[in-house]
């Protein structure tokens, strides 16, 4: 068989290599590792939203058996430098990050002091014996108050609570609105979310006295970034500081930032010269892990009589919490909201302002979708509101405005460049897959019976696999645009491929092996993928922003090709045949048309172990380390279609049908892509219907357990139908687009549109998420249209 015709592994449903260990309880997460002599930390956290720390009385804390020491900020002042989440953005204020509050607390849940003890039980018992006296300070709890003149300042040095301010514009928005047939607008509100990875955050630091070196095991998805920043904070060179992310139990962005507790375990391991471990409990997670999606978006869309989009105005306030997070900064989420609001549409005129405002709440950070769930919610609601005004089918409304094939590459009104992706094709595929016409009939029949049934669309595009031209976070001075793969065949013929990425559920140990096996021509079972360890490559950041399949896959391809060339050259010497007559497949090099062949194992043995088999001046180690930079990113696009029913008695919303049509370029492993989409849609359904971090007027967090902060459960999740649309392959190496986040971007908008459709007879438009039964009840009573 011709090599080109042999089945490739890319594109196949290869079973995940990660799974045997995870299925049997043999996974190794940070909390599963406890070296002898480990001390456990417990934190006393602020119970005030904004207050001065007047005094700390340790009481009898130190006399609890097993307690070794208690630390507050003054005890470690000289042991580190703070981390500064800097940015090139003008007018931005970077809040320094310290492990423990210094004199002042700024949110309920902020770490104030830490107890180190021989067991977590002892450490927690000691916490209860400590008395902290605070002097309360005034605070503005809501972002709209915090941004007002004269609001109490959280960071006096900043001189304002609006630490991020930016404006965007293109074209003549006023003229567009003046010339429009009509405009639709509203103030949209996405309530604060928290990512809730099922594994809580956990850190374990060990000091190696012999080498004066620190190893930090961290449940992080950015081990490279953490290594680099701690190197500065602790003044340790990178070769004496190693950050390992072993199995990590989900992140969704929540484990993609530097945390105070992470800094402190590192500081104390060096200070006490003992292993130090901290494992978050769920209460601490809900109070202190980075939160997300807290925006107020005033937006208005001008449309002509045919439904064509003419202009868009947006004014966004992002509640970024008490600190600007490292490394992404508080600009990450709110600035992306305005960058992505024009969506996948043809739209010439746009004007937007965004303000990121500090409030006394846990810092916000990256969460699956970043900015785009909010932007898509606002824009897709406007599209449907306009369609309703025109009496136009929402699918047709989108068809008229989605960018069409000849228009690519298209520069969006906010300056994003969309490469060709299936914007129109996904809309059509979603309609076909769901059988839209028959769904409409079913909806109308149900309505005739007095049921509240609705259908909603959401179309969006996102930039994935972003290269070095722009930073993943606006103005962030860290290179997020390159990825290195080091591949080596050792003397036994086995293959090791090391990356800077950090898989935490994405199945990259499988997909990257598929890519390498195809490119190198080896057997997939001979490959070990290494990742999640800062020592593997000179510079690596981690896995985030739907980058790892694109950048990791690209680097894997480049390195594998170099190694394959070396393998073939060695084989040519051994087989005494010209290189261009040889092919590598499934771990065997052969010469088609002859019966000569040699295995990778034999080649490796000849190269490394047998002197003289290969001429000494032609002998090369079978290794390569190549770096891939896609420079630009590539557009992943999708349309979601949701059908919902509202219980007319309880106002509970049930999702009855859900379809996603997405263009993620070449699919490496359909089973893995399906899982990414389904999981992300579930999170989006949570955003739409369930999830809301609630702070009361005193700044206390009300949703402090998983019985109060509800996430989707098996009982209420619909099956999710998926269509993979592959239009043209993007110019990325391998033709991959990123697919980690999209589900969460589309689902909130699609469901908000479906609920609005179900309630359209009452003139109700959904503007706030989540859509809880209580909110539906309020909307219906306000409308005065409570049906009998």
């Amino acid at each position, binding site marked *: 068989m011709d090599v080109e015709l042999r089945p490739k592994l890319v594109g196949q449903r290869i079973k995940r290599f990660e799974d045997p260990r995870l299925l049997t309880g043999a996974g190794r997460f940070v909390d599963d590792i406890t070296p002898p002599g480990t001390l456990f930390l417990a934190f006393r956290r602020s119970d005030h939203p904004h207050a001065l720390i007047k005094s700390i009385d340790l009481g009898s804390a130190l006399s609890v058996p097993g307690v070794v020491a208690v630390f507050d900020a003054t005890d470690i002042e000289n042991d580190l430098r703070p981390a500064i989440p800097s940015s090139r953005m003008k007018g931005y204020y970077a809040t320094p990050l310290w492990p423990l509050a210094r004199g002042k607390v700024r949110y309920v849940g902020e770490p104030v002091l830490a107890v180190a003890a021989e067991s977590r039980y002892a450490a927690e018992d000691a916490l209860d014996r400590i008395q902290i006296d605070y002097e309360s300070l005034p605070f503005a709890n809501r972002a709209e108050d915090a941004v007002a003149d004269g609001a109490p300042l959280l960071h006096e040095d900043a001189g304002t609570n609006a630490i991020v301010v930016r404006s965007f514009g293109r074209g003549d928005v006023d003229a567009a609105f003046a010339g429009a047939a009509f405009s639709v607008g509203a103030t949209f509100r996405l309530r604060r979310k928290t990512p809730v990875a099922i594994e809580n955050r956990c850190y374990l630091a060990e000091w190696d006295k012999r080498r004066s070196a620190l190893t930090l095991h961290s449940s992080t998805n950015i081990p490279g970034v953490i290594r680099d920043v701690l190197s500065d904070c602790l003044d340790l060179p990178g070769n004496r500081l190693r950050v390992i992310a072993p199995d990590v139990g989900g992140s969704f962005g929540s484990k993609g930032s530097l945390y105070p507790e992470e800094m402190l375990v590192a500081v104390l391991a060096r200070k006490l010269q003992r292993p130090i471990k901290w494992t978050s409990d769920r209460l601490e997670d809900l109070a202190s892990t980075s939160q997300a999606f807290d925006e107020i978006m005033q937006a208005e869309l001008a449309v002509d009589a045919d439904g064509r989009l003419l202009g868009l105005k947006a004014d966004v306030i992002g509640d970024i919490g008490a600190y600007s997070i490292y490394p992404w900064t508080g600009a990450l989420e709110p600035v992306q909201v305005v960058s992505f609001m024009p969506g996948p549409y043809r739209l010439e005129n746009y004007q937007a302002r965004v303000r990121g405002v500090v409030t006394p709440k846990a810092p916000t950070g990256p969460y699956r979708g970043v900015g785009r769930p909010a932007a898509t919610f606002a824009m897709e609601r406007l599209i449907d509101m306009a369609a309703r005004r025109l009496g136009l089918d929402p699918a047709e409304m989108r068809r008229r405005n989605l960018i069409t094939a000849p228009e690519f590459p298209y520069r969006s009104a906010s300056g994003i460049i969309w490469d060709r992706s299936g914007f129109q094709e996904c809309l059509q595929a979603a309609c076909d897959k769901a059988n839209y016409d028959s769904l409409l009939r079913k909806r109308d029949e149900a309505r005739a019976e007095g049921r509240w049934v609705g259908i909603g669309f959401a179309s969006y595009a996102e930039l994935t696999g972003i290269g070095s031209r722009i930073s993943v976070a606006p103005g962030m001075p860290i290179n997020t645009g390159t990825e290195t793969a080091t591949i080596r065949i050792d003397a036994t013929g086995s293959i090791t491929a090391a990356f800077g990425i950090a898989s935490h559920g994405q199945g990259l140990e499988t997909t990257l092996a598929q890519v390498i096996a195809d490119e190198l021509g080896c057997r997939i079972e001979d490959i070990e993928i290494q990742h999640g360890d800062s020592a593997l490559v000179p510079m690596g950041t981690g896995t985030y922003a739907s980058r790892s399949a694109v950048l990791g896959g690209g680097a894997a391809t480049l390195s594998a090709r170099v190694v394959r060339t070396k393998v073939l050259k060695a084989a040519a010497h051994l087989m005494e045949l010209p290189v261009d007559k040889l092919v590598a497949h499934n771990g065997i090099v052969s010469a088609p048309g002859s019966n000569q062949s040699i295995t990778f194992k034999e080649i490796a043995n000849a190269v490394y172990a047998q002197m003289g088999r290969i001429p000494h001046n032609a002998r090369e180690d079978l290794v390569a380390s190549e770096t891939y930079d896609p420079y630009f990113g590539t557009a992943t696009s999708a349309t979601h279609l949701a059908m919902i029913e509202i219980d007319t008695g309880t106002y509970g919303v049930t999702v009855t049908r859900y379809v996603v049509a997405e263009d993620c370029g070449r699919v490496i492993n359909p089973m893995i892509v399906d899982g990414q989409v*389904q999981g992300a849609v579930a999170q989006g359904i949570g955003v739409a219907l369930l999830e809301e971090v609630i702070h009361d007027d005193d700044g206390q967090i009300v949703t402090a357990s998983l019985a109060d902060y509800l996430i989707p*459960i098996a009982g209420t999740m619909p099956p999710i139908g998926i269509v993979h649309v592959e239009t043209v392959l993007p110019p990325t190496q391998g033709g991959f687009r990123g697919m980690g986040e999209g589900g969460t971007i589309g689902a909130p908008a699609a469901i908000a549109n479906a609920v609005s459709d179900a309630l359209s007879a009452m003139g109700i438009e959904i503007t706030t998420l989540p859509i809880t039964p209580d909110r539906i009840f309020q909307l219906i009573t306000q409308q005065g249209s409570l049906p009998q």
Partner: protein
Amino acid sequence: MAKTYVSATINGESAEFLCETQQTLLDVLRDVIGLTGSKEGCGSGDCGACSVIVDDRLVCSCLMLGVEAEGKSITTIEGIANGDTLHPIQQKFLEYAALQCGFCTPGLIVATKALLDENPNPTETEARYWLAGNLCRCTGYDKVIRAVMDVAADMRGEKVA
């Protein structure tokens, strides 16, 4: 602090251990016995990551004390496979890639085992609500439910189309 002597059966073998009276069964399994497969996701009975089977009942081991294990028979995730041979439930999860980060997975496998021990022929709705106490943030449950329905049919000796 004085420790309490406990004797129980763990994964079919008799086990004796010393634990403090306030230690949860989950902490005993993980920290005293070294069976780290059971996970803590909440410590308050809300997530199911710590699921174990105690005398045929599905239990959140974070809500049970180690000393309460006295005389009981406990099955953890480490006791589900038969040596190196995966249990059919594990095998089916593997075929469907019904896991991503794998942190909730030990709990889901144990809970599925308890479901099928009690009800070998669940409807999809029954399976979904039985597993409603096992939170998974990665999969959206779709592949999990399909794997459970499929393995249930296999274990009944039926072929599913």
